[in-house]
């Protein structure tokens, strides 16, 4: 299903369409050619922009009202009889209100339900912590059978939604509110689930980012080149699970320093997934995680929040400079006896 879907993303205007809008469009397009596609939401049809699908396929769209647990259970039942349900709601509700339904009904039975979680991180800034979601990656990556994708922008969302059709099991796609600036200007840059995309090359340090962090990390890399003469690699780790071990191992070997950037609690998300690979590699690597340091986020415009938590280009550049100063310790007391 990844190709031959008729209209392609290039027909859409990257500058004027948000990730959510593109998602709704792509879904409508996929369902034109695949009658198994159905759309579901929980009173957030307009907010999650699945309304674009609803308009074109009213007979295959179901609103469950404000009932996210039922939303996920119903999606599981539909998948059980052969459909491919795309269930959309805010990340906070998809991952927490309905966590057990996602785990027990969808993941345990390994059903092809595709969850499109919008308003993730602090993208719904002024709404505050009840509507922020900085826990979902930790929750979703702990569910066996689940694939977890965090697209960098609308173009990558289109790629992720198409790719999700080819994955036989459940997929969690985490997107923002739709005001995020575009990163990619074309869709054929080689998106593949589970394969990080190197978006900036470098040898001094690797920034591994996802979501809105990708654009900011690339801007930070440019800034560091201009101002500090540093060579920073940036990986777009759009797939949190399965994580691209190879890309991380190369980063360890080739740059020895890794900073992760995510719009998520620094516990349990991208940073933790990367840390697992570093620890298992047995190699020395200076490492730091940028994200929300185990706190509930403040209220405000998302851009202000990103700056406050050091997730914008300047904040990332500062973290890189600090991480470059970390010395690798010699340990005279320790001998490897193996």
């Amino acid at each position: 299903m990844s190709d031959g879907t008729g209209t392609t993303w290039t027909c859409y205007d990257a500058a004027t369409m948000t990730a959510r809008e593109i998602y709704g469009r792509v879904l409508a397009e996929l369902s034109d050619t695949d009658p198994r596609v159905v759309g579901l939401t929980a009173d957030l049809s307009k907010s999650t922009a699945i309304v674009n699908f609803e308009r074109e396929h009213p007979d295959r769209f179901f609103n469950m009202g404000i009932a996210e647990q039922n939303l996920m259970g119903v999606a599981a039942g539909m998948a059980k009889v052969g459909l491919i349900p795309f269930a959309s709601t805010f990340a906070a509700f998809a991952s927490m209100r309905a966590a057990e339904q996602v785990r027990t009904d969808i993941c345990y039975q390994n059903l092809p339900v595709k969850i499109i979680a919008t308003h993730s991180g602090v993208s719904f800034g002024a709404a505050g912590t009840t509507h922020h979601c900085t826990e979902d990656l930790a929750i979703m990556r702990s569910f066996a059978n689940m694939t977890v994708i965090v697209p960098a922008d609308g173009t990558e969302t289109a790629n992720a939604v198409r790719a999700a059709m080819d994955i036989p099991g459940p997929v969690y796609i985490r997107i923002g509110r739709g005001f995020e600036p575009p990163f990619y200007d074309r869709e054929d840059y080689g998106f593949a689930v589970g394969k990080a995309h190197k978006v900036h090359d470098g040898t001094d340090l690797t920034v591994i980012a996802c979501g809105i962090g990708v654009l900011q990390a690339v801007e930070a890399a440019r800034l560091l080149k201009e101002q500090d003469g540093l060579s920073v690699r940036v990986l777009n780790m759009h797939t949190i699970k399965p994580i691209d071990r190879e890309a991380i191992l190369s980063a360890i070997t080739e740059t020895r320093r890794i900073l992760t950037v995510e719009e998520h609690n620094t516990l349990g998300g991208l940073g933790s997934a990367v840390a697992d690979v570093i620890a298992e590699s047995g190699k020395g690597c200076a490492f730091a995680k940028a994200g929300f340091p185990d706190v509930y986020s403040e209220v405000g415009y998302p851009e202000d929040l990103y700056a406050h938590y050091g997730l914008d280009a300047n904040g990332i550049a500062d973290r890189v400079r600090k991480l470059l100063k970390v010395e690798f310790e010699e340990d005279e007391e320790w001998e490897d006896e193996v």
Partner: protein
Amino acid sequence: MPLSTEERKELYGRAKGLRKDIVTVTSESGGAHIGGGLSALDILVLLYFKYLNIDPENPSWEERDRFVLSKGHAAIAYVPVLARRGYFSFDELKTFNKFGSPFGMHPDSRRIRGCDASTGSLGHGLPMAVGMALGARVLGKSFRTFCLLGDGECNEGVVWEALMAAAHYKLTRLVPIIDRNGLMIDGPTETVMSLEPLEEKLAAFGFDVLSVDGHDLDAVGGAIEHAIAAGDPSAAGETVGSGGKPVCIVANTTKGKGIDFMEGEVPWHYGSIDAELRIKALESIDRMYEAIGGLA
């Protein structure tokens, strides 16, 4: 069509044999949710031996009726029913609860032939059944979906979310059946968390509610037939299963039904049976069917 004399005899005979099967599996497995298994059994017997349009030779047949055991802990009754219906050999149940077995306390649809949904965590089955019934409509298929819930399970808010959705979408080919045995782990439902007036609540949610004796096969059969008729295109309107009010059946049952020392006893929600109790249990089942007289 009411049960014929022969059908009645056959179904009561099935139920009697399965009650004994439940005792056998419970005693051999070390323990099971026998109380709620025995309250649900007669409903399962009617569905699997009379009403469900299924083919045990072809468990993934797309047109088959679906059944979701929302009260997944009744696997102790459900799994022997599947075995006796021909999905697998009853001998396989010797592994029940044991390491590596497909059969645990709660059914796993990925490992048990004929099982349409993995359940066990309460409140999860009905939403999935709603999804199956809605899915049937999208796919233009005419199969029905039956879902058996526990009464204590109806404490879960998501059950009411699903009921709301079933009525909203007029899912007349979905038939929720509530096993109203009146007990939950901590005691009577009305002591732990009141459900009454249950039938009025269900009616207010948009259901045509039928309340029947859940151990009277004629009564439960009649209610199921009423529900089936309500989902027929002629009764429901132009589109299959998209007509009027869905039917919900409240089956008034006795927890532990058929085993005198378990009937209505809260501690028998879950229990194990030693050799001595096994004999007593089997004798009690014989007495129950002798009392019914001539039916089995």
